[in-house]
């Protein structure tokens, strides 16, 4: 078993039995489902909207080259510097290069999963920069020295008491555990950081090819401050975030809000088209956009799973996933957790090391059913399993399935197996649930039904 697989199994065993954790997540997700459903109903035709969104992303992704060039050309025409990064290391080097050139000391960031993907914070901190996350949830997990727990709700696993504790420990300021009070503490700290920061780094929800604009969705206004106050702004964006037309946002902004948080639209939606233009009152003096590939083109080359690039990182598939709801965000050991993470991580980081995530699914399909851009998520997990077994079969599994085929295919062998099963089960009673039990994985927590005294096939034969 690969190291990530061992880690996953151990954490899954621990977290899925943690009833406190289960309670927090099930409650949060139950509330999410209620508001999501309400907001979906405000669409005239939600299934039609999904169809349109999927078709739009299909067009965007299948003509990625053209859209990206158009985006770069447009945004550069207003004085933005566009950088193309093939790998995580290149993206980090580009950003560190800008920080050096600007002689920066403090960097303020708004929420960006792509920056987690390339481990940007570690790189900047190691290079001596002070890095501050400005999204409240991200700010909290940064204080706790944890990665974000969820794509959209980075601190959803924490109670207000735990947040109060970390504020006390790290900020020495936590008058109560009231959310409003704690938010005011964070606000006071962050306002200072916006003013001190030399560079602001953001992610992007969409990159509009037609107009050369970056669209950022948020609820706290922190991305606006991150973009507006520091002299230099950097946006790190995965190449799959491109949308062809400005009018596409009319669908995608409400869709992202509905599926992400159950809001009709998020509180702030801002488009950034370049650095401060002559005559403008605010905005950064310099604007850099870093376009990140980091194996996305590998996924693009896979015609079967290319639709995984449709993902708008709304987190809806995590929210409905019974695996995620029981093992939680950290167990995956990946930046992108939940069903979408299980599909794309093997492409981004290697199939054999990460195939266990594709097996850690009951293939229930709740993810596929909810995905607003219609990614065929659970069938992609099946394809990952097929690809993994084909390229590197596990010998005993292959033998077991090879032996099973003739048994299932032959009435005589099946009848013999049925009889042997009855005998075996007599002895099984002696070792049931223990270490010697070959069915221990099942019997440790569950009863196994007895083999019937007369199987269906035996009944059928006798009846005829």
């Amino acid at each position, binding site marked *: 078993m690969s190291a990530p697989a061992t880690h996953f199994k151990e954490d*899954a065993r621990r977290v899925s039995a943690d009833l406190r954790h289960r309670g927090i997540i099930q409650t949060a997700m139950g509330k999410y489902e209620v508001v999501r459903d309400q907001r979906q109903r405000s669409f005239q035709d939600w299934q039609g909207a999904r169809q349109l969104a999927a078709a739009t992303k299909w067009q965007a992704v299948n003509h990625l080259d053209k859209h990206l060039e158009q985006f770069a050309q447009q945004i550069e025409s207003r004085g933005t510097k566009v950088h193309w990064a093939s790998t995580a290391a290149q993206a980090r080097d580009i950003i560190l290069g800008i920080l050096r050139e600007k002689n920066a000391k403090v960097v303020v960031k708004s929420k960006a999963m792509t920056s987690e993907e390339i481990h940007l914070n570690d790189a900047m901190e190691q290079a001596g920069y002070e890095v501050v996350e400005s999204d409240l949830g991200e700010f909290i997990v940064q204080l706790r020295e944890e990665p974000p727990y969820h794509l959209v709700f980075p601190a959803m696993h924490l109670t207000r008491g735990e947040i109060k504790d970390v504020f006390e420990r790290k900020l020495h300021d936590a008058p109560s555990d009231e959310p409003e009070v704690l938010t005011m503490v964070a606000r006071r700290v962050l306002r200072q950081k916006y003013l001190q920061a030399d560079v602001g780094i953001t992610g992007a929800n969409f990159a509009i090819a037609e107009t050369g604009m970056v669209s950022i969705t948020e609820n706290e206004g922190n991305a606006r401050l991150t973009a507006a106050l520091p002299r230099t702004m950097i946006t790190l964006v995965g190449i799959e975030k491109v949308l062809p037309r400005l009018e596409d946002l009319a669908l995608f902004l409400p869709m992202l809000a509905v599926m992400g948080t159950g809001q009709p639209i998020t509180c702030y939606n801002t488009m950034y088209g370049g650095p401060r233009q002559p005559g403008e009152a605010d905005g950064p003096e310099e604007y850099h956009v870093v376009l990140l590939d980091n194996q996305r083109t590998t996924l693009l080359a896979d015609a079967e799973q290319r639709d995984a690039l449709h993902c708008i990182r709304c987190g809806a598939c995590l929210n409905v996933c019974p*695996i995620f709801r029981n093992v939680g965000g950290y167990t995956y050991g990946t930046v992108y957790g939940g069903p979408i993470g299980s599909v794309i991580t093997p492409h981004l980081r290697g199939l054999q090391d990460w195939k266990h995530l594709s097996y*850690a699914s*009951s293939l*229930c399909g709740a993810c596929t059913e909810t995905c607003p851009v219609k990614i065929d998520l659970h069938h992609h997990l099946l394809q990952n*399993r097929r*690809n*993994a077994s084909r390229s590197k079969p596990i010998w005993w599994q292959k033998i077991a399935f090879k032996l099973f085929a003739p048994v299932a295919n032959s009435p005589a062998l099946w009848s013999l197996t049925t009889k042997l099963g009855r005998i075996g089960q007599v002895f099984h009673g002696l070792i049931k649930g223990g270490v010697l039990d070959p069915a221990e994985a099942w019997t440790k927590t569950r009863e196994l039904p*007895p083999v019937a005294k007369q199987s269906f096939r035996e009944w059928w034969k006798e009846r005829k």
Partner: protein
Amino acid sequence: MTVTLFIPCFVDLFYPQVGISMVRILERLGHKVVCPSSPACCGQPAFNTGYWDESRKIAMKVIESLKDAEVVVIASGSCGAMLKVFYPELFAGTKYEQMARELAPKCHEFSAFLVNKLGVTDLGATFPHKVTFHDGCHGLRELNNKRPPRELLAKVRGLELIEMDAAETCCGFGGTFSAKFPAISTAMGDVKCASALDTKAEFIVSCDSSCLMQIQGLADRQKKPIKTIHLAEVLVQS
């Protein structure tokens, strides 16, 4: 008509009563029932584990054994999805693809067959109990089989259906998943059982014996006061 009944391996071994109930119901409705003696499995375990070559060894025999059938009724939503949805994918680009595509529309999960194909909802059954219904994931999402079992239950005399919050949430069985990741599978089953118990129903009814094996297995170990029963076993009672 002549109905070919496909009895999956675990129904054959552990829950023969489910298949027997289906035979009785179909015969009562005036149909001739035939059951191929082999294969005893649809090949889904190998398919879901990624061993498609090994899965095809069984699946091609299934296709051959059912090629002359008028209609095929499958005693499980999960195996039904395998025959109807996944065989064409499994055999894509092989000489069996055409046969798989011809077989697919002839295949029906039991409750869908009664309601959608035969147009029957009232089987004259009596089952004076409070029940809740568990949607098996394959039946629900691969076969879009939400309505038929409920229409059948609605006509059972004395039966009260109380829907649970987590009706559409996976029970955690997932075939080999339940043995590969027993801790997650058990946690999922616990969530399911809790939701079912909240309804105060006496029985959890489903179209999938495999889900019921998971739920009953957990409930028995934890001494929870709930019983599971396949839809066909409810419908056969008079």
